[in-house]
Structure formats: C-alpha cells, structure tokens
C-alpha cells in the first residue's frame, strides 16, 4: 500500500520558535516531506500593506535551520508556504537568502531550491478591470473597482497546489513559496506522490496547524501525518499530546467559517462524510473526506491599503463622577478636536478599557460600574504631524473636561506620561476577492537555483 509521511512542525513558521524535541522525534520517523506554512491574515493588514515581516528574523532562521538540516540529512523535500508572514516577494527573497546563508554555514552539499512568487501588480488587475472583467468580492464585498484597487498598496494571490507540484516535478529539494493556501503546502507533495485528491486535500487541512490538531492544547509541537490511499492518520510527536477523534474533528472547524466545507483554489473539501476513529491513545485515523473541483478555477486575492498615520495616547480616569459621565467627557474631547480640525479628514477612536475596550459594539454589558477606566485614544491622519497633534488634543482634553459638578478641577485625567505614542500606520484589508484564471500557474512565477556546495 502506498504511504506518504509528512512532518508538520509549526502552524506559522517564525511566529514563535518550533519546539525541538518533538521535531527531532518526527525526523526520526523518516518523513517523506517536511512542510510548514509561514503566513497568516491574523496579524492584521499592516504587514502586507507595508510589506514587512511580523516575526523576528532570529525565530524565522531558527525554524528554517531545523527544517533545512533535517531535510538535507534525510534527503527529502522541505516546503515552506506564505514566506515571512505575508507571502510577498519580499518574504520569499528573505527566506531564500536565509536558506543560502544556512547552506554556507553548514557547508551543505548542492541542492535545488525553487522560489515561487505571488505578488500581483496593480496594473495587471487594472488592465483586466478595464477589459470589463469582473473580480468578484468574497463574503458580500462588492466586485473590485478601480478606486479600491488604487488605494491598495500591496496585493498577493493565494496559490493552490499547482505551482508546488510544478516545482517538485522539476526536482526541487527546497521550496520557498509566496502566499499560499495553507492546505496546498501539504496537499501538493501528497498529490505529487500519488495520494488521491480526497485524502491529500483533507490531510493538508488537518496538518497545517501542527499540534493544534491534538490535545492538550499546545503550539509549535510537531505532528506526523501518515497518508494512504483512503485514509490519513494523525500522530503527535510530543510525549504529552494525543490526537483523538474529537481533537481532530474540533480542528476541522478551527478558525474557519464552516466546519463541513473548506474552499480552496480550484475546488472544495467536503468533510460531511468524515469518519474519525481512534487507533490507540495517541493516534486517530480519518476516512471519508471528499474533494470536488469547481468548473472554473478561481484564486483569492488579498490586498491591503494605507489609511493614514496613526498615534495612540493612554489616559486613565479614577473619579467615579467622571466615569459615570464618561460619554460626556469623550464628547468634550471630540468637540475640541472638531474645533481645530473640522468634521472630517481624520479618524478618531476612544477605546475605553473597563467598559467595552475589548468587544466594542459587541459588548453586551452596557452600563458597567468600574472603579477606574483606561482609555486609549487612537488618532489617524494623512500625515504624522497631524496625527500627533490630533491625538494630543484629544488625549489632553480629558484633563480639561468641563463638566458641572467635577470636584477635581486640577485635572480630570491621569497620564502614565504626557506623550503621544507613534504607532504603525493604519492599514485596511481592501481586497478579499476572487479572480478567474485559465491556468492555475498564471499569476505565479517559479525560479530555480542551485544552492550549497561552496
């Protein structure tokens, strides 16, 4: 019976370092592939928009070094998707550089590295829009229009399995890819090895978050997937974790809209028929997943655009009278900003911790009685000087709030420090859309080079 073993050491390479003990245990099992995804939208729109990493390079290096050394030792491919958090060309080039440095450091024998790029240039999409093509919005977003496209700073296309398979066919030993479906990073080598689509795609889905599929809850521990013709077996490599039918089923729904259907480039996984079965205390077998191809091949586009420069100011309030009349205090602050800057051309938010700082409008407790509150004033403006001034004005005016009945007329606010903190600029997810392609490879560029042997 055909069997393919895939080692998944981390759900987000570089975000926090891989645990080494369970990783090496996994390597001892002689996997056929070592795969990891390195990207996420959870980090917000800033890293993609500004095209910067969200993870420290030291941690990225740590994880890449472990995987590279194990992959070369076993002489099996190592596959990385969504390089450096964003999966932009910057991320691919950064990881490729790290791989080359590591090859030199460890005097590794020559190997073939594939880099797969996923950046999409604005004018490519602009031309397609001008030709009348519809780029449909996901989840109720309207179709992409020119205005939204032009205020976007960076766009990536989310690749499916095809670019990876192409790289494997060409003999890649190491694949560093840009933005990818998490599932594709694992499904591609399985498909290339002859595992049927029904199992390969589902296996990708359960393996992509590594130890999150097992219990008790733990991150960054390695998990081994054993894939066969009609089943996938999940086996955690750490001593203390177990993959149970429930932990594996629970994972099917983790951070996904729907626990039964998972949409991917070119099709979807149907998990309605999945049967989860405990093999023993530690391992669970899953059968019955399906993969269906869609008639048209659609690829997701992700884009982020800058809204403005952003500053924060931290304000504390302890006076119960002011807390009880907080809405009026905030109104005062807002009014002073309006007097200086007018009604529009900036954005101003008051995050009131102690009231609804975490949940905002979703907070069901409407009238809490905290003994103190902390307010983060968030000011956004087209340029940094204005953002600073705006945030100072809004924050300092808590000190001067004029409310009839205030006893503490020497100041109605406490500051840790009378200062405005310059934050990352504000960005927004402008594009979450689907584009039709004739060829699954058409938005992606694959390059090969020989590394090592120096």
């Amino acid at each position, binding site marked *: 019976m055909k069997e393919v073993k895939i080692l998944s050491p981390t759900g987000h390479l570089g975000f926090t370092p891989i645990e080494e003990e369970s990783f090496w245990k996994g390597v001892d099992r002689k996997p056929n592939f070592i795969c990891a995804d390195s990207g996420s939208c959870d980090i917000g729109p800033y890293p993609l928009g500004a095209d910067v990493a969200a993870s420290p390079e030291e941690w990225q290096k740590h994880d890449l070094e472990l995987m590279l050394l194990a992959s070369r030792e076993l002489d099996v491919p190592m596959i990385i998707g969504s390089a450096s958090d964003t999966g932009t060309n910057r991320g691919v080039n950064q990881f490729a550089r790290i791989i080359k440095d590591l090859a030199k450091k460890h005097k590794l024998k020559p190997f073939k590295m594939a880099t797969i790029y996923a950046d999409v240039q604005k004018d490519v999409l602009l031309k397609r829009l001008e030709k009348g093509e519809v780029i449909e919005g996901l989840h109720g977003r309207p179709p992409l229009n020119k205005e939204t496209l032009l205020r976007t700073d960076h766009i990536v296309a989310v690749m499916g399995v095809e670019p990876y398979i192409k790289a494997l066919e060409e003999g890649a030993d190491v694949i560093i890819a840009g933005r990818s479906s998490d599932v594709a990073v694992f499904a591609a080598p399985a498909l290339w090895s002859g595992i049927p689509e029904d199992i390969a795609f589902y296996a990708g889905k359960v393996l992509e978050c590594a130890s999150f599929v097992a219990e008790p809850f733990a991150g960054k521990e390695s998990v081994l997937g054993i894939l066969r013709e009609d089943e996938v077996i999940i086996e955690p490599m750490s001593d203390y974790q177990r993959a149970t039918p429930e932990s594996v*089923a629970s994972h099917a729904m983790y951070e996904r809209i729907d*626990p039964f259907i998972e949409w991917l480039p070119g099709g979807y996984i149907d998990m309605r028929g999945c049967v989860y079965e405990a093999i023993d205390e530690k391992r669970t077998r899953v059968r019955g997943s399906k993969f269906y191809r869609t008639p048209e091949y659609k690829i997701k586009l992700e884009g982020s655009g800058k809204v403005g420069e952003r500053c924060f100011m931290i304000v504390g309030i302890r006076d119960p009278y002011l807390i009880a009349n907080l809405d009026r205090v905030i109104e005062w602050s807002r009014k002073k900003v309006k007097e200086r800057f007018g009604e529009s051309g900036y954005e101003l938010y008051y995050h009131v911790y102690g009231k609804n700082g975490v949940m*905002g409008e979703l907070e069901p*407790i409407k009238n809490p009685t905290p003994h103190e509150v902390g307010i983060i004033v968030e000011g956004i403006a087209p340029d940094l000087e204005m953002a600073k001034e705006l945030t100072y004005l809004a924050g300092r005016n808590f000190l001067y709030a004029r409310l009839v009945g205030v006893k503490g007329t020497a100041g109605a606010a406490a500051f840790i420090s009378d200062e405005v903190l310059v934050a990352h600029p504000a960005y927004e*997810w402008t594009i979450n859309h689907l584009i039709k392609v004739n060829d699954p490879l058409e938005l992606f560029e694959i390059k090969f080079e020989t590394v090592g042997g120096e």
Partner: protein
Amino acid sequence: MKKVPLVDLAKTIRSKNAGVDHITFDIIFRDREVYEYIKQNQLITKEMVAQIYNISPEKIVLFVYFDPAKAIKFTIRRSKPSGSPGETDVMGAQQYPPLFEISLTLPESLLKEEGGGSKG
C-alpha cells in the same frame, strides 16, 4: 430539571478570526449526552446568540451543531475587516465570554458528572 450556565458544561468556548471578514465561535461540550440533549431541544439557537451580541440574525452567516466534535459553531460577519482603524480585537480571540452565562435547563440525570465542572 436544573439550571446550569453554559460555562459549566462546555470543555472549550472560543472565538477566532475566520479570514479577515468574519469571527467564528466554537462551543465544544464535554459530555455527548449533554450535547445531544441541547441539540435535540435546540436550547441554543442563532436568534439567542444574535440577541447576546445585539446583532441582526443575518449577520450570523453560519450556525450549526457539529456532531463529530460535540460542538456548536457559529460565524458572524465583522462590521469592518480585522485590523481596520478603531479595531479592538485584531484576532477576534476575546469575543466569546458573553456566551459563558447562557443559562440552560437540563434534566438532573444528565448533570450527575458535571457537578463542580469548570471551563476547560
């Protein structure tokens, strides 16, 4: 029959982003029979969670009982994409606590092993 808060019956109650436009909630039960009873009697509904979060039921794009995990899952549409100006929870990871207090009335026979249970 006995009234029990959801927090005492669930092993896991969590929230998390599902992509950039949604937050998804998972309530995973500890006991299969308790789960089945709540499911059969529809003790937790889409309308109930819409009311808790003060949103219209149309904002809940999915609400299902998911048998393999003994779980209820629902997904809500964000008012703005994650991380937009004014964001309070970029990963959507702290939106679940109001679910703790959902009060459920169950037969005491089902609760014999649940006494003193705490959240997992």
